[in-house]
């Protein structure tokens, strides 16, 4: 688990608001060099790697996690050095007052979401709805200084560390979906040097939060035979609907049943987990899953796809909370999947 935490800490330290994913390429180039036969970035900003099997006509298994995170984009530079922003993806606006951000301009500078002082608030104002339009970001610079660094379109992201709350429970602003990328890298480490008989590929897709562009195009290039999409899912939190108790943090990774994933391959994955004593939870998502699984499953003439999710609390906030044990189990399951997919029978006629 230490290893996954280490990878997660490194990955979450690199910014990557949807549309600005390339910032992690140098890290990936450096860490993955020599471990893959083919790797690199794609024109839309995804990153991929393929480790080829010596076996002739080996099948290709693709693991997908998205590289982008939610965040903000500058819409106006105001007097006094304040910025107006819009959301990229959607966060809970109520959490933003007096929270810290990084502004990824010509150079990266810190900022603080302003909060209205009490003497300027109407009575009862703090009980009312807060929207991003009510807020601005304080940069501590003059408008002129700011215009040298930032322009309309500059990305802004949460400023908060990845740290532990307890032995197993960890928090970061970008576990969606960097924690899944960490699981994939860990799984590929687990099978390193093994003759698994399949080509093992991964893609860290650009633009999931804004419409799946990276997943579609990168999977097209890799042309996998099977795919597992890894994303995060909303874990049960107090106050949520009773049925949400189906998936909780600390109880294993979640396997989705959906019409947008492949039922046979999903059952194969479930059986594999059971056989290996790997904890799993189950999520019913009949229609759209809101993940890359939609586009990977239907791309390239159809790719049987499974959706696994790391349960997460406070998704799309600066404090996404996950359990390291779920991540470790997920990496194990992915490794087992690579070792066992050769025995998969496919859809019955």
């Amino acid at each position, binding site marked *: 688990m230490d290893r996954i935490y280490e990878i997660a800490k490194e990955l979450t330290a690199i910014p990557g608001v949807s549309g600005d994913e390339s910032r992690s390429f140098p890290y990936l180039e450096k860490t993955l060099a020599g471990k893959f036969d083919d790797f690199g970035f794609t024109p839309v900003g995804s990153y991929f790697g393929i480790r080829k099997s010596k076996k002739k006509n080996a099948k290709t298994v693709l693991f997908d996690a998205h590289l982008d995170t939610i965040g903000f984009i500058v819409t106006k530079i*105001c*007097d*006094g050095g*304040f910025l*107006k922003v819009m959301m990229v993806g*959607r*966060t*809970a*606006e*109520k*959490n*933003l*007052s*007096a*929270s*810290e951000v990084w502004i990824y301009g010509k150079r990266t*500078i*810190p*900022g*603080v979401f*302003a*909060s209205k*002082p*009490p*003497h*300027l608030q109407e009575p009862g104002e*703090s*009980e*009312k*709805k*807060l*929207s991003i339009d009510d807020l*601005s970001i*304080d*940069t*501590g*610079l003059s408008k002129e200084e700011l215009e040298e660094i930032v322009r309309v379109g500059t990305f802004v992201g949460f400023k*908060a560390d990845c740290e*532990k*709350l*307890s*032995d*197993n*429970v960890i*928090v970061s602003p970008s576990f969606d979906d960097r924690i899944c990328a960490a699981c994939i890298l860990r799984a590929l480490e687990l099978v390193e040097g093994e003759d698994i008989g399949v080509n093992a590929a991964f893609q860290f897709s650009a633009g999931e939060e804004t419409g799946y562009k990276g997943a579609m195009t990168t999977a097209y290039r890799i042309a996998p035979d099977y795919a597992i999409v890894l994303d995060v899912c*909303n874990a049960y*939190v*107090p*106050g*949520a*609907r009773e049925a*949400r108790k189906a998936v909780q943090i600390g109880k294993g990774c979640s396997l989705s049943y959906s019409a947008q994933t492949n039922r046979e391959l999903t059952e194969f994955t479930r059986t594999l987990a059971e056989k290996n004593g790997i904890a799993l939870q189950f999520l019913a998502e009949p229609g759209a899953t809101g993940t890359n699984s939609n586009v990977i499953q239907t791309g390239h003439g159809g790719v049987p796809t499974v959706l696994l999710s790391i349960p*997460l*609390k*406070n*998704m*799309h*906030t600066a*404090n996404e*909370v996950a359990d390291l044990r779920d991540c470790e189990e997920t990496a194990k399951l992915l490794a087992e999947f690579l070792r066992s997919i050769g025995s998969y029978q496919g859809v019955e006629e």
Partner: protein
Amino acid sequence: MEFFERLKDYCSILAPSGMEKPMRKRIIEDIKDSGAEWRVDPNGNLIVFKKGRARRDKKLVVAAHMDEVGFMASYIDEEGYVRIENVGGIDRRVVSGRRIMFCGSNLVGVVASKAIHIQTKEEIGKCEPINEMRVDIGCYDRESAEKRVRIGDCATFCPNYEEFGNGLIKSKAIDDRFGCAVMVELINSDLEYDTYFAFDTCEEIGCDGAKEVCYQLNPDIAVILESTTAGDICGTPAEKAACTVHGGAVISHMDNSTVYDKELVKLAMELGKEKGIPCQLKNTVAGGNEARAYQREACGARVLAISAPTRYIHSACSVAAKEDLTAVAAMTKTIIERKF
């Protein structure tokens, strides 16, 4: 030690009202070689007397408070979350979604926030009251949570001091650690006249420490060093800003609890002009500080507040300008160099 290095240390100490001990210990450590006399009163106020080159006819005290706003654990629920009450006045909106740190253990907790995807239409955009928020400390049940946090344990926003922008700093607890840092510098310098310094407790819950100290010292003049709300943010009309960051030391003529001594206010503004110390008058009646206690307790003192204009006070991330803090220090020094 350089002033802003000291300020960083002070801001990073966890010391909400009633839990000032670590702050007090650090201050005592920092003034022990100054030649000043000091004592700690039964409720934890730290009272310092520094002899000057000459006696002053009037008794003058400079005061700042050691405590900061924070939280107290009020209940550990079955699912392992800590429920909290605020210590001091905090807008619920600056608490939602923050990380807090527990005093003593330095454990980090996350103020939980339901993901936007699972909020009901009514919940979106709205913050629950602080005493309905849940703090996640990474536990799954009451038993394990109770091993880490007990009812009555206190927490503050996480330490985060950093310089940013154009000569600004941002941190939790600038209110009133900068006041403490200014006083420590003065205590360690040579003073013209005998001066008392009071490091008070429990300002944030009603100036309790100041009341106690005022009774003990019965001063003629009290100079309060504080942070005051700067409302100069995007969209605020200038006349409602109260004061502005980069505008210099703030002199209040009136706030929500005190009408200040007119002569002292006039004197401060004149001295500012004469000595070239940037200063500004607060242009709104808002906020309040320990002046109210020093004016009303014992025989009552003539009061003056010299404040640092600070944005987002009582939040995880207050913002102040270094030059304003320097101006407050210079103004304080200038005032106490007078005989009265």
